[in-house]
């Protein structure tokens, strides 16, 4: 019987992999469902066991499986890991994704699974924390805070009961690495959480997964049940979100697990001191925790030897939007934005020129190709008034209207604001209104309240587009520095970058070169 591998990843299923798998079974093949390899242009992808190894065919439709099984299919790709898109990667975290059966403990162990946990268990908690510090690993959710320091704080916190919380509320558009890892290699995340538990002395862990990820929820729940005896006495459970973007903010997420509205808490106290149910808590992103098994099994130095500046190790970068080679590309920090978009991504799928890329999700800046020299690095992006966030890159072609995208950023903030702080809750609504007035060419008259004789503190009269721009920039500064969390605080990034790099879209007559920030 021929053995074949077909992804059951949510993206692959959307592209038709279930039908292909069914057809292969009907044709007499033994089908193993895997995660996704991470290049969606070649999916649905079938890999067939041959004398030369696993040979890939894709994209494939259900009525073509006979040609795949006899090797005559026109989309024969050869060995997947030898394709340029994969050969250039350094897969530390995603080493098994797309290759193994996500729910096979045998497969996991055969591909190096649990080696990190076993190594950690031979070490004192302090030594595990030291290894994570030495690796240079920083929070992959976006903030880039050193993971080892966070763990040290939780380890040092007094108290019997502690928690490990995995932030799997991956709400940023353009990102899907958490989802792919949970669906394609769930034991890797479980192993990372078990190592964290050993390191800080936690007894119980939660994986908070957004409800928009039904496949990941199912796979994680089953994987937790299968691995329970391995991570014991540490216990784990999945909590499902309910459609609130702001719950990706760590303190809102903790409130949500506690059964409350997902509202942001003021910090301090840090979650590592007073976290879930008031107990010391380590809260890390999926990719952060999933990077830990490698660090413990291969050594902190091996991980730290890869990278750029203070950004050590690898980052699973997600190429999204209008891009030819959309997918997951894990590589050491430091590749330039241009290499990622043009070389790896292959430019736009529509074949039109790239006009802008948004890096880091809805709160990330829009960069024009003039900024493609930026190296993929936390500090470099911060300096350029942007962020790498969760490392999603959304590509737009020259048909995009950047004023519309800036307005959307404000609108999204208004929809998703938790409401706790005013700059975010009110500022986002005012932002939409201000951009609307800019697009209408300014305003002719003061509004009714402004025209009242009692009002002395607001400028009345007509306003030009440039006047509105001044207001918008002022509003952005208030949101940036006055908001409690990154939702209100970072929404100005896409807005200001759109204003700076694409002023004409707002009706502003200013040459782009003249912009100094």
């Amino acid at each position: 019987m021929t053995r074949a591998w077909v992804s059951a990843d949510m993206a692959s299923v959307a592209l038709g992999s279930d039908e292909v798998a069914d057809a292969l079974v009907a044709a007499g093949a033994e089908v193993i469902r895997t995660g996704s390899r991470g290049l969606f242009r070649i999916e649905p992808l079938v890999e067939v066991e041959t004398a030369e190894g696993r040979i890939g065919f894709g994209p494939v439709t259900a009525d073509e499986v006979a040609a795949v099984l006899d090797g005559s299919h026109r989309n024969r790709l050869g060995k997947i890991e030898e394709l340029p898109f994969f050969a250039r990667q350094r897969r530390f975290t995603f080493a098994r994704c797309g290759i193994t059966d996500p729910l096979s403990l045998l497969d996991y162990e055969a591909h190096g699974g649990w080696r990190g946990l076993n190594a950690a268990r031979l070490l004192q908690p302090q030594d595990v924390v030291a290894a994570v510090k030495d690796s240079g690993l920083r929070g992959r959710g976006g903030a880039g805070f050193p993971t080892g320091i966070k763990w040290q704080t939780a380890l040092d916190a007094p108290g019997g009961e502690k928690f490990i919380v995995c932030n799997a509320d991956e709400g940023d558009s353009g990102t899907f690495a958490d989802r792919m890892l949970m669906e394609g290699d769930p034991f890797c995340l479980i192993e990372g959480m078990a190592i964290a538990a050993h390191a800080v002395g936690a007894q119980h862990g939660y994986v908070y997964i957004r409800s928009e990820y039904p496949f990941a929820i199912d796979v994680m729940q089953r994987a937790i049940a299968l691995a329970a005896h391995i991570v014991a006495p540490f216990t784990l459970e999945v909590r499902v979100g309910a459609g609130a973007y702001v719950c990706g903010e760590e303190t809102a997420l903790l409130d949500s697990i506690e059964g409350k509205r997902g509202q942001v808490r003021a910090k301090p106290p840090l979650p590592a001191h007073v976290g879930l149910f008031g107990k010391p808590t380590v809260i890390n992103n999926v990719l952060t925790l999933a990077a830990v098994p490698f660090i413990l099994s291969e050594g902190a130095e091996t991980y730290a030897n890869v990278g750029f500046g203070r950004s050590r190790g690898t980052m699973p970068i997600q190429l999204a939007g209008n891009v030819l080679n959309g997918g997951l590309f894990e590589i050491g920090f430091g590749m330039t934005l241009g290499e990622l978009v043009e070389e790896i991504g292959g430019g736009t799928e529509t074949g039109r020129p790239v006009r802008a890329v948004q890096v880091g999700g809805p709160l990330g800046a829009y960069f024009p190709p003039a900024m493609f020299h930026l190296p993929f690095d936390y500090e470099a992006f911060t300096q350029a008034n942007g962020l790498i966030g969760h490392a999603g890159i959304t590509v737009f072609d020259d048909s995009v209207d950047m004023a519309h995208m800036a307005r959307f950023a404000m609108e999204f903030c208004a929809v998703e604001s938790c409401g706790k702080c005013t700059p975010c809750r009110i500022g986002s609504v005012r932002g939409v209104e201000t951009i609307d007035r800019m697009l209408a060419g300014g305003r002719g008259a003061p509004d009714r309240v402004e025209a009242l004789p009692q009002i002395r503190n607001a400028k009345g009269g007509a306003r030009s587009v440039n006047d509105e721009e001044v207001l918008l920039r002022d509003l952005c500064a208030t949101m940036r520095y006055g908001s409690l969390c990154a939702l209100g605080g970072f929404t100005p990034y896409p807005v200001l970058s759109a204003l700076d790099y694409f002023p004409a879209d707002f009706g502003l007559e200013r040459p782009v070169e003249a912009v100094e920030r």
Partner: protein
Amino acid sequence: MGRNESTAVALERSVEDEVATLVARHADERGGLLPLLHAIQDALGHIPREAIPLVAEGLNLSRAEVHGVVSFYHDFRTRPAGKHVVKLCRAESCQARGGAAVEAAASARLGVAMGETRADGQVTLEPVYCIGLCAIGPNAIVNGRPVCRIDLGVLDLIAERIST
């Protein structure tokens, strides 16, 4: 008591029984309100008004706290959805692939405004902000299944599916 009235009472009782069973199951769970609300919505399709006091009492919360949580999260409905639910992604990556035009076309093709349920109760069209299929959009979740690369042809297929 007329026949319709007794049916209504029986229905109401079954809702209360169902909620009470679920409340009992989650009452001792730490931070069990969200799992409980998900369970109620899974069982009943929405979170009926009469469930709120039962949940509040079972979890030792005020009704205001329960209502506050129900109204905070986009997922929780206080009215039944249509027979079919189309959650269409509005986020940036789908917009980069023509999402705005697809959104307008979906509204027209399905005969329902975004965020609404069609008058005949056949379909609800809801916005969703990212389902994590960002390189193959525009995307939607139709009755729990992911659908990608939505164009006019795919919209026709969706419209066909929801007509039954």
